């Protein structure tokens, strides 16, 4: 058992740290601490320029092969990059849907042309992506997607509606789960299709969230078109690809996220000292408990990492999403408790602006919903990690 990173890895850490210090200056200095969850639709142009800077230096997608614009970093190094990125307070990654979801999916399931065509645009942030999975009637039950794609000569013609699409307002492209065989069983007739957003057939309407801002939208496809070759992983084979993307979404970057939570925790601790709440024995209990859970979040991830050679998701890997989403919610609640009456006072600005801890409190209600709700996570843990029987299917005929 050894919890220290190797000398080479520490040298890599130093390299990342130095680069971030040297580059988060000038026009980018204002981005520190911005653009996280709940603050996603802010400073778009500036953050895009930052993404470009990252990409030019090879940091946008460190784990990708060098040929695709990455640094061929090992898993440990990827973790170190994420840790240092969070530590430096660099802005939330505007391109994360491309860098963390679509990119790895293409590297895994895409063909050579697709990799050549799309990966460079992710690396230099010239093309931002959004994820077109959820629909009004396909949320947790994702395989129920109804958006249709039909081949018309060399092009797919797409009709339907997506909802809760984060970043639709900034994205040039969307990866869309479409039904391409209406007669096949639910999971067998789905394709994973890449669709340009800037066309007449695509319209998005921002949806206002409980945080007051609009990070996600409804997206309507009305005879939208995309070239035939933009299907990933084969026609009607999209379910497997979609699940692959979700695995990247659930697995990646927990350690960087832990550090981001940790800096939120520092703000909470500071607030507790300032308000004097830290002298209250009950608050002390809650703060200590949060700190313990935060440390365990890191330790759980380190254990997951230590098993990465086996390529098999260990039991401890499956608990990560449920663990951090609950923890984050508790952090928001304790923060509000500490601030007392003051927690109800918003900044003196136009619109529905929020203080950082208020944003944490409100936004963390989403953490337990997206990327597999807590209930879905518990089903997955119960069935896959513990081998408990699935629920009996409800017959659809009445």
């Amino acid at each position, binding site marked *: 058992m050894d919890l220290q990173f190797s000398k080479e890895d520490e040298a890599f850490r130093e390299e990342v740290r130095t680069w971030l210090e040297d580059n988060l200056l000038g026009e980018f200095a204002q981005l520190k601490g911005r653009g996280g969850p709940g603050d996603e639709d802010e400073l778009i142009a500036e953050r895009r320029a930052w993404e470009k800077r990252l990409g030019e230096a090879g940091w946008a997608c460190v784990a990708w092969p060098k040929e695709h614009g990455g640094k061929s970093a090992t898993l440990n190094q990827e973790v170190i990059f994420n840790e240092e990125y969070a530590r430096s307070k660099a802005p939330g990654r505007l391109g994360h849907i491309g860098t963390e979801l679509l990119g790895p999916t293409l590297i895994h399931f895409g063909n050579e042309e697709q990799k050549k065509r799309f990966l460079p645009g992710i690396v230099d942030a010239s093309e931002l992506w959004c994820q077109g999975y959820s629909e009004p009637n396909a949320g947790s039950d994702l395989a129920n997607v109804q958006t249709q794609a039909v081949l018309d000569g060399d092009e797919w013609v797409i009709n339907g509606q997506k909802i809760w699409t984060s970043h639709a307002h900034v994205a040039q492209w969307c990866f869309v789960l479409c039904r391409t065989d209406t007669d096949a069983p639910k999971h067998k007739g789905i394709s994973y299709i890449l669709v340009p957003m800037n066309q007449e057939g695509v319209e998005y309407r921002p949806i206002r969230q409980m945080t007051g801002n609009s990070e996600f939208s409804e997206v309507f496809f009305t005879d939208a078109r995309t070239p035939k070759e933009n299907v990933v992983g084969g026609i009607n084979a999209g379910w497997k690809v979609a699940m692959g993307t979700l695995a990247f979404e659930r697995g990646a970057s927990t350690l960087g996220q832990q550090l981001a939570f940790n800096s939120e925790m520092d703000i909470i601790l500071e607030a507790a000292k300032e308000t004097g709440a830290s002298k209250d024995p009950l608050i002390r209990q809650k*703060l200590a408990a949060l700190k*313990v859970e935060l*440390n365990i979040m890191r*330790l*759980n991830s380190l254990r997951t990492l230590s098993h990465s050679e086996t390529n098999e998701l260990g039991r401890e890997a499956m608990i990560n999403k449920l663990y951090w989403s609950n923890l984050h919610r508790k952090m928001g609640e304790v923060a509000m408790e500490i601030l007392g009456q003051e927690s109800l006072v918003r900044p003196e600005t136009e619109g529905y602006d929020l203080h950082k801890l208020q944003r944490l409190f409100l936004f963390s209600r989403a953490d337990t919903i997206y990327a597999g709700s807590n*209930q879905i996570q518990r089903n997955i843990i119960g069935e896959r990690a*513990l081998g*408990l029987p699935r629920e009996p299917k409800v017959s659809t005929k009445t």
Partner: protein
Amino acid sequence: MKFALNDEQEALAESAKRFLQEKAGCEAALQVMETEQGFDEAVWDTMASELGWTALTIPEAYGGYGLGYTDLIPLLEAMGRHMLCSPFFSSICMGANSILEAGTEEQKAKWLPEIAAGTSRATLAFTEAGGTWCADDIQATYTRTDEGFVINGTKHYVLDGHTAHLIIIAARAEGSTGEKGISLFVMDPASQGLSICAIKNLDQTRKQANITLDNTPLALSAQLGGQDLDWSIVQRILDLAGVALSLEQVGCAERCLQTAVDYAKIRTQFNRPIGSFQAIKHKCADMLVLVESARSAAWYAAWSATQSEALADAASQAQSYCSDALYSCAAESIQIHGGIGFTWEHEAHLYFKRAQSSKVLLGTPETHRERIAQMLEL
């Protein structure tokens, strides 16, 4: 970076499992726990002389194998899992550690070899009527005489106090207060003026005793380190015990989860296995989160035993989290088992009682969280 067991530790886990499956387990516990002694002498002998478990963490210079604290992980987890009733914890994780951390070379050479061999069992008599592990709670006093010391006081809740061969008593210099003036003395249970009385415990699988010292005389050589101890040394001894208890708690919690899951797969009601009901399935999922997270905390604490600065924090983190985690798992396991989980013959109550006793044994989760709050300078 590798936060996992190594091959030797995996092998130890395997052999511990094989031995304890046969010699421990709940049926054995239900019998042994009815005796006043509280453990099976033959099992102890095998653990000591054949398996060498008692020698594992004792340095080679004193007749041990000189392995590290992380090497206890597989053993302690397995002991918890199989509900082993044994003075291993008191003798090795409290007694031997006290001598190792506080003793002089001479004292270590005198007592550690017999503890390593299992021919002597040691325990730490620390808590008094207040039941806490704070310095202030130590009211037993010692006074210096011409030949040595005289000790007076009463020790409560001493683990295996009625069966130990070496009792390590915490006492303070008469007139001292707080963290100053605390000494540890190693004594023979047959000493003059010393009386030992076994307690009837809620958790019968872990025995305790009360010890009264009435002008008990001791030789000079009985004082560990030959002087009053720096409180940080005492704290380190308690933290090492806390780490060990956390590891045992992880094993217990994992067993609670396992039996609950096994039962949820085979018990059917309303024509379906109860494990297919989300109310049950989701409880099990939450238990897995607790078990794996408790394990991360306890392993980290074991690793921290060699990193002296990190130990205090890590030990309290592990103790607070593992105590709560085991309690939840033990409680939910009874619920998932329904009526059968409430019976004497079923193992669930053994784990529930063990959960409660472990939660109180070395400081409640609240005490540990308060300590963490202090370390956070709140």
